[in-house]
């Protein structure tokens, strides 16, 4: 009703787009201004997304018509409970990572900070646009904006980064082209590109082969983008060799946004009955996802580099969420959406901790992390909280999402998946206790020699430390308040027929 209440959905995306092009102009003139400009842009987006989420909670879904044209002729932004949850998640994590990126950029890439901030804002525009839009082709455009910025940001990194980024370019383009093909097939057969409109038209066409082929192309394309098991080969190289602040932003968010696209199109564009009964998609996805969990955890055991171990754990986390979606009952889908939120927060915290360790020590080898608990006590404390959450220990948030996933697997009468989820908790415990043991406990021979090496406190700088601590506190708070999140947001996301 009020002017300012109506126009906030567009502010989330367009302000950062314009600021991203303002930063190179200011970079030629005065370099010190780039960082405050970036913070102002993402703060405006965070503010708008909070207002939008508030409005969705009290009034229901919001539609915003770009250009004044009504759908199905025009592009619209459609924000309901799932979108509101995702957009608040994306904006808040981006703001925290941006605050912490200043010192890392000064140390790792001293003369490339102007392009970094500009590409950072462009990547944020792409990710925010994906979660806000309600039009299929607009989603492709925003997906490519985010992917191109990610390719360029990853290539700035260290020794092996350009080759890893080239492989990511080739594979990512295949994924996006398959998505474009599926949009094309759906357009030929229905004549519309709007998601809500497709939901009305498609039920009459479920028996036709074109819709089947479109769905298959879409699944494979989005599986490449979200790194589901056989198509995950670009992920470890690309995220390990990227610079630290870049991987802290891309790693938690890009795969989760890909999973959001899959949930939205499987359940909001195609009816749930199509995805479950007419094609055995959910059966295939659930087995692939459980293999992904096991393979991710086993491959992570073989790694010595801390960051590479985290990327393989990410492959397993994607497996968790897809397993939750594919089991397709109320508890499992609740667990999957809750796990998206929890996992983004946990992964962002872990990657920021690796960035802090990289900033202070310059190494990432697990076995060289001795005495870290005396050198950086707060950082290792946050690492312990995040590790406990990954293993699934209450009251951290990881416990609640795994609880719902196990309940969903029991509801589906599939005891193999229950065993897989419990075993992976054990694997996570092994993986994280390796690091915690090396950082907290001294090996026996140091005491036998009688020397007690004195290590002074050399904590990470404040701009790196405060976002880490905020996220660690957030992990515990999300765990305690997860019931409220479920009753406010998630119970409207799950389709009524489950």
């Amino acid at each position, binding site marked *: 009703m009020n002017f300012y209440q109506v126009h906030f959905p567009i502010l989330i995306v367009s302000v950062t787009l314009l600021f991203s092009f303002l930063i190179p102009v200011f970079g030629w003139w005065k370099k010190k201004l780039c960082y405050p400009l970036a913070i102002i842009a993402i703060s405006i987006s965070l503010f708008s997304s909070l207002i939008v989420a508030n409005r969705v909670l009290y009034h229901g879904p919001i539609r915003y018509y770009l250009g004044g044209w009504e759908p199905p002729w025009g592009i619209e932004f459609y924000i309901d409970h799932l979108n509101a949850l995702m957009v608040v998640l994306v904006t808040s994590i981006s703001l925290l990572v941006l605050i912490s990126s200043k010192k890392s950029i000064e140390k790792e890439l001293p003369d490339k900070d102007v392009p970094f901030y500009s590409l950072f804002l462009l990547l944020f525009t792409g990710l925010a646009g994906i979660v806000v839009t309600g039009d299929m*082709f607009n989603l492709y455009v925003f997906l490519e904006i985010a992917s191109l910025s990610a390719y360029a940001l990853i290539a700035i990194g260290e020794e092996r980064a350009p080759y890893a980024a080239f492989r990511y370019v080739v594979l990512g383009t295949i994924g996006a082209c398959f998505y474009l093909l599926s949009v094309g097939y759906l357009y030929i057969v229905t004549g519309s590109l709007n998601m809500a409109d497709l939901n009305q038209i498609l039920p009459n066409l479920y028996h036709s082969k074109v819709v089947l082929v479109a769905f298959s192309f879409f699944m494979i394309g989005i599986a490449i983008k979200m790194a589901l098991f056989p198509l995950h080969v670009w992920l470890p190289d690309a995220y390990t060799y990227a610079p630290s602040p870049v991987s802290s932003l891309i790693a938690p968010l890009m795969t989760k946004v890909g999973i959001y696209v899959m949930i939205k199109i499987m359940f909001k564009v195609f009816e749930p009955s199509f995805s479950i009964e007419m094609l055995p998609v959910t059966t295939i996805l659930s087995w692939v996802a459980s293999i992904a969990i096991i393979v991710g955890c086993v491959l992570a055991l073989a790694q010595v580099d801390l960051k590479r171990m985290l990327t393989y754990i990410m492959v397993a986390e994607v497996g968790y969420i897809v397993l939750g979606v594919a089991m397709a009952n109320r508890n499992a889908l609740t667990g999957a959406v809750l796990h998206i939120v929890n996992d983004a927060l946990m992964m962002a915290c872990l990657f920021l901790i690796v960035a802090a360790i990289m900033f202070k020590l310059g190494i990432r080898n697990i076995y060289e992390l001795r005495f870290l608990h005396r050198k950086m006590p707060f950082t290792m404390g946050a690492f312990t909280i995040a590790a406990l959450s990954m293993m699934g220990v209450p009251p951290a948030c990881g416990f609640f999402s795994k609880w719902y996933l196990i309940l969903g697997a029991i509801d589906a009468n599939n005891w193999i998946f229950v065993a897989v989820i419990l075993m992976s908790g054990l694997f996570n415990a092994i993986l994280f206790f390796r690091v915690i043991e090396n950082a907290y406990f001294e090996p026996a021979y140091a005491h036998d020699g009688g020397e007690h090496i004195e290590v002074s406190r050399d904590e990470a700088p404040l701009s790196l430390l405060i976002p880490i601590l905020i996220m660690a506190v957030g992990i515990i708070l999300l765990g305690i308040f997860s019931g409220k999140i479920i009753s406010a947001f998630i119970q409207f996301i799950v389709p009524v027929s489950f």
Partner: protein
Amino acid sequence: MLEFLVGKFNYYIYIFLMMIGFYAMMGKRNLVKKLIGMNIFQWSIILYFISIGAKKGGSIPIVEGLSGHGAHIVSHASQYVNPLPHVLMLTAIVVGVGTTGVALALLITIYKKYKTLEEDEILRKIK
């Protein structure tokens, strides 16, 4: 049968081009050839989209001789070629150009570092 083979020739052409591009991306070892394969892959999809908008005997989708509020006078929309795939593919062409630009810049960086563009030599130098 003949209708199936000849009437849908645009589908055969686009699938043929797409498979050529796909093979070049997977089978060739030079990085520039992989990039060209990716390009062929993308352009084949763009060709396909434009081919589905064409109509037999359709005219250009421009309303002649009317300025301002000509929108409510347009009639017989079936006489015009469908303009929507053309507009969508304009965006896809721009995306393809951007991806090619980024990939070429990456190739220059790789060449400066490893002095070669063959994939097996690069992997040997990395190890």
